[in-house]
């Protein structure tokens, strides 16, 4: 079953076509990676799916219902969670409170939300820092917090925007492991934007390549990275894979 | 009550002239708010301070405002520069409301300081040479308003010239457009912000020296003018200096007309209504760009 269906999506900013004629599907329970050079329109695409931007044309369907044009909070309510490329923690709140905010989306009361939040912090290895103000966290931990918060809303689809950026290989592997678990055990479908090819190759079942707002390649990772158009525009010849 | 054409024209002219002085005051805020990014809640209080300065210049030194404006403006430029450089600048990285509170506290201190020093009684500067109105056919133009407006226009032109044609002006505009970029090319952004602020307070000082000829001064009128300046800047468009001037004339005109056609005491209600409408429909203002 296709959880997310994007059909001929388009968005322009004052004449600049950020996203143009983009169509793809994300199968339920899969992990799909979105790659491409900077400025290709990846985050714009995320913003369109997550409701931060309204598309100029095209259709977005989630679990069979159209969601294009809905507000971000409505889209979260329907089951899509997202992280931001530049992390946006609630700096004045504690790590635990940050996640509780997310958990309140699905929990009836604070106690239930707290329990859910603590569980997720444990899963992401942040429980020792639960009472720290979010502002005190290092960048890798902030990224983990961002993921934890989004997970707390119990999404069916998780949109991850460059969560690996700035992480060391060991940290990167940890996050890869957590995401795999979240996908397999909790059945969360994942669509991720990534530049770190290590993560893309390790996680993705499908890769979509975006360039100048258009899709120039789609398919299994091993195939896509060999496609000439992809190599020319983004990966280059000596990519370490 | 029939309103004849001559009275109407006189009122319109009067409104435009006063509006030009408002425009200069607002221009100061446009520079401070639009360029130095400071929400100057103390704007009106700075103007009243300049007005008191010109009163002192007149009563103690016998200098009429048209002459006193030079030292007062210079003084206020320095004060503005210093204030931004050493008091306001650290707040650039703080949350927005911190800056509001800072300027608000400065406004409170300035206003009540003036109250303590000068007392609550109204003061003004009335020059004999300005008593006689200029007659242009059937029209009657207030001499004081005309000269004040001319000074306002002159100062504005000088400011435009500075920003357009000098190196310093271009640097300041670059800084306002792109802070990081300006830093990257080696501009001393702190210096430039302080300069911009100083120029803003200079405008306020000149406007104040002219205002003292037009209205009565008490410490309590400050906040009203702060608000007026914000209304003008927002209506005219943030970041647009032309907008500030246009906005000033518009407000001056509407106040004059409202005073004539509706109720004099309700005229500022009109300005606020205009602000509310503009904020809701077109926050960028009439001539504003993308901010």
């Amino acid at each position, binding site marked *: 079953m296709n959880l997310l269906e994007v059909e001929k999506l388009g968005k322009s900013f004052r004449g600049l076509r950020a996203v143009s004629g983009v169509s793809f599907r994300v199968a339920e329970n899969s992990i799909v990676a979105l790659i491409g050079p900077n400025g290709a329109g990846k985050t714009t695409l995320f913003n369109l799916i997550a409701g931060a931007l309204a598309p100029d044309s095209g259709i977005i369907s989630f679990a069979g219902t159209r969601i294009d044009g809905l507000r971000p909070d409505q889209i979260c309510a329907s089951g899509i969670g997202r992280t931001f490329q530049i992390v946006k923690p609630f700096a004045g709140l504690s790590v635990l409170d940050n996640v509780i905010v997310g958990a309140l989306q699905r929990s009836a009361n604070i106690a239930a939300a707290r329990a859910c939040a603590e569980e997720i912090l444990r899963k992401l290895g942040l429980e020792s820092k639960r009472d720290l103000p979010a502002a005190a966290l290092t960048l890798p931990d902030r990224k983990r917090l961002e993921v934890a918060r989004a997970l707390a*809303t119990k999404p069916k689809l998780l949109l991850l925007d460059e969560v690996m950026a700035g992480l060391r290989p060991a940290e990167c592997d940890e996050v890869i492991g957590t995401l795999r678990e979240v996908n397999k055990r909790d059945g969360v479908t994942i669509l991720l934007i990534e530049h770190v090819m290590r993560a893309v190759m390790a996680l993705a079942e499908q890769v979509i390549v975006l360039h100048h707002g258009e899709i120039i390649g789609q398919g299994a990772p091993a195939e896509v990275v060999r496609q000439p158009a992809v190599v020319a525009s983004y990966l280059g010849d000596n990519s370490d894979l | 009550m029939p309103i004849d054409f001559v009275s109407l024209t006189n009122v319109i002219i009067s409104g435009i002239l006063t509006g030009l002085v408002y425009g200069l005051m607002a221009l100061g805020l446009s520079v401070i708010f639009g360029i130095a990014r400071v929400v100057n809640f103390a704007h009106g209080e700075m103007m009243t301070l300049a007005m008191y300065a010109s009163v002192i210049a007149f009563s103690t030194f016998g200098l009429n405002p048209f002459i006193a404006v030079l030292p007062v403006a210079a003084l206020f430029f320095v004060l503005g520069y210093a204030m931004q450089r050493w008091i306001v600048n650290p707040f650039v990285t703080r949350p927005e409301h911190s800056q509001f509170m800072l300027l608000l506290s400065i406004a409170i201190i300035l206003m009540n300081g003036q109250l303590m020093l000068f007392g609550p009684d109204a003061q003004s500067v009335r020059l004999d040479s300005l008593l006689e109105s200029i007659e242009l056919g059937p029209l009657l133009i207030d001499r004081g308003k005309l000269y004040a407006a001319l000074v306002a226009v002159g100062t504005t032109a000088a400011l435009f010239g500075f920003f357009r044609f000098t190196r310093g002006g271009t640097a300041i505009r670059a800084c306002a457009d792109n802070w990081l970029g300006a830093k990257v090319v080696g501009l001393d952004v702190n210096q430039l912000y302080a300069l911009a602020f100083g120029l803003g307070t200079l405008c306020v000082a000149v406007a104040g020296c002219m205002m003292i000829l037009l209205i009565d001064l008490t410490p309590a009128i400050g906040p009203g003018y702060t608000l007026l300046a914000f209304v003008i800047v927002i209506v005219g468009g943030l970041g647009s200096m032309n907008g500030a001037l246009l906005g000033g004339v518009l407000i001056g005109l509407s106040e004059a007309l409202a005073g004539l056609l509706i109720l004099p005491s309700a005229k500022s209600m009109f300005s606020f209504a205009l602000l*509310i409408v503009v904020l809701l429909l077109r926050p960028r203002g009439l001539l504003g760009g993308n901010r």
Partner: protein
Amino acid sequence: MNRRGSFLLALLAAALIALPAFADNYLLSVATLCLFFAYTGQAWNIMMGFAGQLSLGHALYLGVGGYTAGALYFHYGVSPWIGVWFAIFVCIALGAFLGALAFRSGISGVYFTLLTIAFAEFARIGFDHFTWVGGSAGLFLKVSQQNWLDLRGPPALYYYVMLMLAALAFGLSAWLLRRRPGYYWQAIRENEEAASALGIDTFRWKLVAVVTSAAMTAVSGVFLVFYYNNLFPEQIFSINRSVEIILAPIIGGMGTLFGPIIGAALISLLADGATELVDVLGWNIPGVKQIIYGLILFAVVVFLPHGIWPSIARKLNLER
């Protein structure tokens, strides 16, 4: 809040309840005013400290609330205990109008603040011409015999009314802070975009904050008109009033529970001290009190941006 804090709180409550037995009328009036600022500061704190929406025009609700109940009493003899509900209703509508207008148009930050100021100023000038409630000459309420149904009585009556209100406001704030509204408001305050992505309908919740704050402030206005027995547009809608309201929470500490209370206490103490000093020195210059407020605000903003309470709480080890 740990055991030590709870104990101190209980002690404070006991002292406050017993105060009228020991204090003279003057001290009572100072205490009443202090509680007034604590209460109104709490109301403002919900909108700003919790939800991050800066209003510098809160005098709007003081005035509209006060005039609603005052006019009902003046023209129809309606008791303030009933009139206050009308005042609350009107201010809820007003707050909803202002909030909806602002938030639908995406106005935030300084523009929102300016909008609040503009509304208050509009009201000030408007009520100056509103002759049914006295216009600029003011509204004067009959000072009849002692009758607590009409909220007329000894100073102790007003003190206890204000104490009750302040306690209720404190309780409400504490309750809200620990529950969904508190979490959602703080999320919006910290980062509205992220809050939205987590399923929070930011428009609705900001509106709730504004309306709650407006309703609470309306009650303050009703209190004022029956305490002073008169109301003037120039005074009640003045920006000075709006500034007074925010002083306590900012100096004490925005977004905290005790901030507005500590701030109110400090300001009352200093204001009273200043008045005494001025009398003793024979200065009696208008503006001394306000300039002290301004200097304190300046000092707090520059040196203690989170307000006084967080530092005190840390020193006395009162938080967790």
